[in-house]
């Protein structure tokens, strides 16, 4: 049984904001995360934002703006995303199944704040920022600061996520996104990693960015690894060491947990593979 106390479908964003200021409401778009939670006993008053004008992908100069209710399928299909934010397109194309991707939205993936959310590592690579709206106005916040813990965010109860902005011209010569799961379909990530590298013909790395999910309590970039890659020459040995640094950082930040004996070698391997693919070695 699903416990929905109230269901409200606002006609426009202004009405949605007014409703959220007045009552404790949970926004629902695709519902692919929320409905299983409601089935497990969570009860709420729902505000259906699925029909508002929050499904869009726009080039706004230095940024690509993606409406919060844009489905994973639309993002994976978008030529603009494929050209400017290829890691995001790939990550969204690997979420769940076709059915889940047709309903699930990027805003929902972020709001649910699962430590294994597939879109988040890719978004972090592109310096993603969120646009939140409430009766007191617009607030812009970095995604890295928005997600405060596993399944926790810094969204105020009266705020609605309206869009996600990604920086579009991050210097890149190659990129990689690897998702690891127990099986290939309808898969909840065991770990995923996104990487971009910028380097010249001499293989000297100008800059590198890495981000991972299910490694730290909150998906995040790996500055320790990024720093050691800066100015170094891309070789298999370097990427192996980068994997080891990633694993050391994981243990330092997340502690030794029941899953650590599994995750340590896996993170070393995934980091190595992602960098090798991004550097086209």
């Amino acid at each position, binding site marked *: 049984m699903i416990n929905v106390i109230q269901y409200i479908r606002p006609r426009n964003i202004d009405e949605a904001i007014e409703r959220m200021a007045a009552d404790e409401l949970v926004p*629902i778009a*695709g*519902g*692919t995360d929320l409905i299983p939670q409601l*089935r497990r006993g969570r009860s709420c008053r729902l505000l*259906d934002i*699925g029909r508002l004008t929050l499904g869009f992908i726009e080039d706004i100069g230095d940024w690509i703006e993606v409406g919060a209710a844009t489905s994973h399928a639309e993002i994976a299909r978008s030529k603009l995303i494929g050209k400017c934010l290829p890691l995001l397109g790939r990550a969204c194309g690997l979420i769940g*199944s076709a059915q889940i991707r047709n309903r699930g939205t990027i805003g929902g993936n972020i709001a649910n704040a699962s430590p294994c959310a597939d879109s988040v590592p890719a978004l972090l690579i592109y310096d993603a920022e969120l646009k939140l709206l409430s009766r007191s106005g617009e607030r812009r916040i970095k995604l890295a600061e928005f997600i405060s813990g596993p399944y926790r965010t810094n969204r105020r109860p009266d705020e609605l996520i309206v869009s996600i902005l990604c920086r579009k011209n991050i210097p890149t010569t190659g990129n990689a996104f690897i998702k690891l799961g127990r099986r*290939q*379909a309808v898969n909840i990530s065991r770990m995923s990693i996104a990487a971009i590298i910028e380097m010249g013909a001499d293989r000297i790395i100008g800059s590198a960015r890495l981000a991972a999910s299910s490694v730290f309590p909150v998906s995040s970039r790996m500055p320790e690894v990024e720093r050691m890659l800066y100015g170094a020459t891309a070789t298999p040995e370097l990427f192996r060491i980068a994997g080891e640094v990633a694993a050391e950082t994981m243990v330092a930040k997340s502690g030794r947990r029941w899953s650590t004996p599994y995750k340590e070698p896996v993170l070393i391997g995934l980091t190595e593979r992602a960098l090798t693919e991004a550097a086209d070695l």
Partner: protein
Amino acid sequence: MSSVTEQSKLTAAPSIKIEFRLNGIPQKRDVPVNWTLLRLLRDDLGFLGTKCGCEIGECGACTVLFDRRAVNACLVLAPQIDGAEIWTIEGLAEPGAARLHPIQEAFIKYGAVHCGFCTPGVVMSVLALLLENKNPDEEEIKSALAGNLCRCTGYKQIIDAVKSAAESIGAEDLVKFGVNAGGRK
């Protein structure tokens, strides 16, 4: 709290009026806001072709078309289909026609149906795929069907049936689902 209290609270869920098209036919219903599309189809409208499997979006047995896209009916709240176009397995074959829909015929020809429980959902995923892509390759077929579990066939016969259906299907077999309509972007 006792389960009786819990139950009475649940049955008191408010209702909402919705209008939608089901298999091309306009419908008006008054539906409790905590019902899923799956429950509306099976318990209210009596369309039992859409199967109830896992109810958490893992198995695909409840796959239907929602504005031309495959979705899990167990993960859609009934109020969310207001204004939408829904197609279920019952809508595929023309009423009274001598033959089933080409996708269904291909499933029979290739023995892609064993126990049959997953079949309606699989067929709806195939329909959604062919609406978008007339000539899918094997990888595209596998990707489109990744959200549909079949524990009998091992998928080989299903994939063969989809390849055959893709070859035999014509625009006239897809037009009623709105193949050329823009749909919602």
